[in-house]
């Protein structure tokens, strides 16, 4: 993502946007860490 942003918005914005994006994703994953219920599981084969 950083590599894609770098030539488009410059180093500072690329760093900031990348940090925000991954920070938000990590926060969401931790906050919503409840696995969906499923009748069939691919990690049980």
């Amino acid at each position, binding site marked *: 993502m950083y590599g894609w942003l770098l030539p488009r918005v410059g180093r500072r914005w690329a760093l900031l946007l990348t940090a925000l994006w991954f920070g938000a994703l990590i926060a969401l994953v931790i906050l919503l860490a409840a696995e969906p219920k499923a009748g069939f599981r*691919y990690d049980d084969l």
Partner: protein
Amino acid sequence: MQVLELSWLGWIAASIIVCWALPGRWRPWGIAAFALAFLAVEDPPSAAILSVMAAITWWSGARGGGQRPGIAAVVVLLLGALAAFKVAMAGGGFALPLGMSYYTFRCVHYALERFKKSLPPHTASEFVAYLFFLPTIVAGPIHRFPEFHRDLKRTRLGGDLVSEGLERVLYGYAKILVVSGWLIQEQLQPWIAGLEPAHAWLSTYLYMLSAGYMGYLTFAGYSDIAIGASRLTGFRVIENFNNPFASRNIVEFWRRWHISLTSWVRDYLYATVFSLTRKPYLAALSAMLVIGLWHEVTARYVIWGLAHGLAVAGCQWYQRRRAGGTAPSSRPRAMLGAFAGWFVTFHFVMLSCVFVMHDFDRAMDIYRTLLTGRP
């Protein structure tokens, strides 16, 4: 044991650290030891059964080289063991050894390629590391030995692999927990259920789509986590999905969905049946039937496999018939054809998912509502 459990993540993190800390010649043993220790702690019978399968596979290559009946017997033995466990599991008598479905196909791949003498020169430790590779042992992908062997030569973990690996692991968790679990299951599906009974058809249709996407995102998420963890260990394993719901026909769909399984079936089953019989439709039907049975040895997966086999055979027949014809005369006609192809493929896949994701009565209720509009 599930990929999302924190203990699994702990095992993965520890194995990555230890594997990179070990000197190069000890690395394959370190990789295998970690996966075996994980199996022994989580499910000791799985460790024993998979070890026996590894010994048979190695022995077949070391002793049976060049003997066609010998290699056939080993393949039948490996696949027979998987089938026996699946039948026992369907009857409720047994739990399948951890990761056995993926593991067996890796063993068969190794045994057949070694028989064909197409593998690079390697040691027993590299073979054991390939089979007992923690990131892919629980939920695939069914990666191949030559690529794994190539990456074993890697001596340092570059920044690109670390960045790609962490990113894939995070995207995998986000697909499962945020999009599939929270957005679709907790937010969207209750809202869809609230549409009934006034909008029974719309509610059922949206539910079918949401359940299909949930299944896809969850499995694609597992694959992302496995691929990301593999990169952190220094290995680039095969991709498992390539935007499958954008496919414009069912053959294309199966080139984009669970790619490691479908490419295995194409190379070792479809090609074999086709070369023996010269009947592509029979080869397609048997390939899809085996993919169905690989999931579960139950009537619903037999029907699902046959339905997909007939669809693939039908698509192949249509493509051959059109091959000699003329291309669409105008751009709008071509676009309309592409849209129709996507529409039919997408809905066929979603409707077939209903059949295997629910019990028979519930699946029939969903089909009835979609056909009649009545709840």
